[in-house]
């Protein structure tokens, strides 16, 4: 068996499969999504025997389904992100009272930072609130072990068990040995056992069950303190010099922070050894089972300590429990942590911060700093900093809607249709939350899954003079949109719901949902219709439109906005991750005026502005330019440009770049950049410069086809005569058409007939191609063409890490 590089989430999935899990369900959410996906992949490969895996419509549905499976005697795995547990909490709180049969493990991924979430809530806290045991891994390897152990614990104490990894566990990778094939365990004792006195929750039963929970938690805490494998998750170590016979400093850590502490302690010990400084004796313990608090292990840890530094992410869960323990035991140690300002009160921890805090705690601050850097060699050793100016010039790069994303068209159409009307635009959870960024500025609110539809109703009631608009994605629609829809119809709220149907759960990596009909078990069921759901929930005015068709979308939105009462527009357009891109659009730089409208209207990442491009109408203003690698040919920008300078359907021009220059601006730009860089770095980039020159010659020689030019002129005339919406548009269209004709004439005149131009260009291109090919053939001679790395010849053998 060869070891495989597995992400924490993949390892968690393998751990559950190896533990004999029979049913796996969840709802996608970063950073948890890859767990269910891995199980599905193993199932699809035929390696996970006997397992059922599904994306449920939401977390509550998934957990309830799994609880049914547990009562039916099989092991179940639930996965979600931290907010998903809020949705499933109704089920969780009660099912803990009822108690489980087949092991039920909830992997709830927390997201300190937060990196992709609305909250920094702490699932360890949720576990103690729900009175459910929780395990907290510090590495992907530990997550894998913990998931296996959690199933055994669950069945032994008839309790659900939570495993709580964080992003840096879920999305960190290490090498694993995992079983090639796995088998689900059969149902316990022949399946469901009829016992209404246990499985039907009533107040009297709940009172009894509460007592049972209170009795088992101390037993579980004892298991955590003293029984393998759990006691190994609460491992303790001692190090440093002993001044007083035993350590007085203690460091208590949980989750990924425990890994940071191990790293920081190693750095401290190495640097102290280099500086010949003694490190005070200290004791370090990871709490891998934060609830119920493993008090006996904690007691051993705190014995003789005078000061304890508690390091954890999110809430002060360990710190609070340690304080309670200390008070109850009349402990004589000081506790330092989030509550005392000795640790970050929010966001992620990191080695740098943990290192500084431990140095301070151990009284080493400033004493090790000279020895901070342990490079292999001091060759050229110097920290490198950008100038302050260059630092501020770095482009901001927040996440954006992809080029070709259908949501962009929907947002643009809604804004166009609103015109001057006042409106509140309620967003929701998904890729389309990114629509809030400039220049789309498409969202005014965002709360939680399905919350846009219902928030809009509150806004409609409170501010009837404003249009109340809710955006909801297709997956969110099925997850938690429908109860809000029926409320709007029932209570007569005047809202318009914009359903952004991109046929997938895009933000989390394209998971299927009820509207797609695809399942993880391979079978395809009939897709549920969003329109039928809207109708069933009392919506009578429902418009459907192609999200990439601006005029149709604006008209559809207008109709829905004018309707009194709940209305909806379904924008249809597939996520770019699902469909093959079309040919990129082309900007005609004879027509582009450099007005930037395409950029300021829709903010597509495939359109940028190059101040160095010139044209007859843009003069020295610069021009918009298309990144051909990013553009999917969605065509939205062609409908936005007031001068019709952007064209799609480039099949017409394939093989014959329109108007000579339009085809490869991105490559040109890149090469121009490299030429510039080469001027500063003589020698290193010599080859690039050769390349850039060849490229520009090729451009000059590109030929023009008559069909392309004529077609363009015809297209311009068609735009002009296609009954545009305003007088302004008519004028713009006419000007564009005239321009196109002029360009056609000018292009034809100077070089003779089109055929002649074409022939000459072809000859030129062939010559260039031959020349380039020659330049790229490396003849094996060391004195041959300059290579990329020739600049390093001089330093060979001096630096580097290869001794």
């Amino acid at each position: 068996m060869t070891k495989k590089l597995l992400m924490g989430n993949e390892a968690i999935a393998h751990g559950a499969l190896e533990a004999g899990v029979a049913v796996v369900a969840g709802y996608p959410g970063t950073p948890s999504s890859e767990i269910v996906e891995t199980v599905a992949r193993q199932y699809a490969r035929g390696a996970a025997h006997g397992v059922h895996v599904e994306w449920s419509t939401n977390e509550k549905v998934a957990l309830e389904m799994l609880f049914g499976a547990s009562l039916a005697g099989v092991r179940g795995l639930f996965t979600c992100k931290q907010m998903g547990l809020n949705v499933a909490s109704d089920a969780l709180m009660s099912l803990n009272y009822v108690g489980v049969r087949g092991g039920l493990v909830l992997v709830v991924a927390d997201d300190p930072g937060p990196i992709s979430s609305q909250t920094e809530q702490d699932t360890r806290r949720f576990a103690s609130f729900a009175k459910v045991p929780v395990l907290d891994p510090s590495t992907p390897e530990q997550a894998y072990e913990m998931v296996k152990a959690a199933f055994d614990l669950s069945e032994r104490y008839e309790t659900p068990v939570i495993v709580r990894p964080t992003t840096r566990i879920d999305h960190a990778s290490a090498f694993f040995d995992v079983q090639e094939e796995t088998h689900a365990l059969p149902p316990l004792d022949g399946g469901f056992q009829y016992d209404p006195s246990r499985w039907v929750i009533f107040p009297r039963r709940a009172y009894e069950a509460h007592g049972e929970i209170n009795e088992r938690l101390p037993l579980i805490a004892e298991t955590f303190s003293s029984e393998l494998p759990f006691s190994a998750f609460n491992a303790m170590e001692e190090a440093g010099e002993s001044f007083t016979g035993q350590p007085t400093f203690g460091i208590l850590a949980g989750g990924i922070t425990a890994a940071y502490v191990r790293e920081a302690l190693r750095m401290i010990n190495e640097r102290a050894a280099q500086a010949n400084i003694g490190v005070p004796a200290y004791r370090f313990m990871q709490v891998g089972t934060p609830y119920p608090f493993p008090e006996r292990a904690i007691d051993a840890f705190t014995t003789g300590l005078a000061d304890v530094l508690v390091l954890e992410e999110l809430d002060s869960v360990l710190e609070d429990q340690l304080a309670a323990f200390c008070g109850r035991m009349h402990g004589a140690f000081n506790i330092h942590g989030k509550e005392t300002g000795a640790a970050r009160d929010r966001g992620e921890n990191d080695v740098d911060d943990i290192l500084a805090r431990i140095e301070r705690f151990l009284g080493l601050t400033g004493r090790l700093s000279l020895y901070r850097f342990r490079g292999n060699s001091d060759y050229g050793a110097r920290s490198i900093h950008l100038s302050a100016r260059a630092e501020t010039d770095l482009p901001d790069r927040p996440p954006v809607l992809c080029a070709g994303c259908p949501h962009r068209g929907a947002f643009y159409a809604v804004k166009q249709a609103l015109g001057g009307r006042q409106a509140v635009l309620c967003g929701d959870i998904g890729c389309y939350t990114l629509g809030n960024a400039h220049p789309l500025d498409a969202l005014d609110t965002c709360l939680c899954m399905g919350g846009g539809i219902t928030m809009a109703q509150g806004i409609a009631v409170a501010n009837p003079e404003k249009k109340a608009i809710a955006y909801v994605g297709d997956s969110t629609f099925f997850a938690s949109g429908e109860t809000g829809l029926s409320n709007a119809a029932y209570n007569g709220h005047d809202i318009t719901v914009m359903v952004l149907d991109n046929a997938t759960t895009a933000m989390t990596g394209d998971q299927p949902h009820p509207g797609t009909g695809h399942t993880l078990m391979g079978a395809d069921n009939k897709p549920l219709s969003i329109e039928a759901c809207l109708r069933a929930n009392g919506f009578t005015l429902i418009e459907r439109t192609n999200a990439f068709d601006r005029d149709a979308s604006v008209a559809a939105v207008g109709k829905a906005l004018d309707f009194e009462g709940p209305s909806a527009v379904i924008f249809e357009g597939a996520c770019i991750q699902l469909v093959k891109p079309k040919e990129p659009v082309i900007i005609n730089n004879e027509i582009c005026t450099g007005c930037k409208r395409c950029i300021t209207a829709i903010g597509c990442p495939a359109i940028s502005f190059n101040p160095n491009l010139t044209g007859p109408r843009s003069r020295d203003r610069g021009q918009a330019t298309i990144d051909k690698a990013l553009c999917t040919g969605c065509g939205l920008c062609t409908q936005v440009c007031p001068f019709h300078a952007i064209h799609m359907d480039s099949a017409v021009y394939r093989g014959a770049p329109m108007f000579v220059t339009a085809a490869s601006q991105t490559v040109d730009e890149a090469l121009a950049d490299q030429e510039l860089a080469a001027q500063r770095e003589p020698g290193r980039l010599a080859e690039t410069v050769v390349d850039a020159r060849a490229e520009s010659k090729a451009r000059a020689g590109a030929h023009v086809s008559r069909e392309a030019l004529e077609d363009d002129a015809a297209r311009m005339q068609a735009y002009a005569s296609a009954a545009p919406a305003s007088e302004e548009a008519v004028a713009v269209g006419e000007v564009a058409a005239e321009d196109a004709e002029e360009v056609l004439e000018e292009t034809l005149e100077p070089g003779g007939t089109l055929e002649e131009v074409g022939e000459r260009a072809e000859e030129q291109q062939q010559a260039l191609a031959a020349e380039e090919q020659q330049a790229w053939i490396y003849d094996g001679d060391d004195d041959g063409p300059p290579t990329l790395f020739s600049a390093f010849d001089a330093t060979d053998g001096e630096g580097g890490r290869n001794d």
Partner: protein
Amino acid sequence: MINVMLTGVGGQGTVLASKILAQAAQDKGWHVRTAETIGMAQRGGSVVSHVRMGDRGEEVFSPLIPKGSADMIIAFEPAEGARMLPYLAPHGMLVSATTGIPSVSSALGQNPYRGAQVIAALADAFADAPERLVIVPDAAILKRVGNSRVLNTVLLASAIAVDFLPITLDDLYGAVEVCVKPAYIDMNLQAIDLTLG
């Protein structure tokens, strides 16, 4: 411990590159941890992959590279490399692609971002240690390869060819064969050869 940080823009392929490096290190018997940016930032935002290798037999604890301790930063985009300079060790090397990727917010501004400006700023920053800055003419190489999807392999080959990391080109060939889908192995191996000229 060897720390390599790969940085770029979501969608550029840093994740596969970090897998290839991790595989190369694993094949040498080193303990390895990696960490990736997955989620919202993948939508055209700045992304970073961390690869940490215990080349002296030591265990790697944290998957994330501390500041000032990256032996090498491999930048798939020059501004992203420049952004990560605080992570570079005092002896560390920056290997950067030349081609700048515009961002929407910079396209909206008065001075649209151009990769060349950042390359120039980097050359200034490394003026005292020019041997620690490698600029890879990615557009030219990719054109030679004929496929823009192998940027990650081109940059890895460049990073290893400068003979700074204790990982050889043979290690790279071996790791590519394990990590890359069979249909694309030849294309990637060819990309390595064409990168080396």
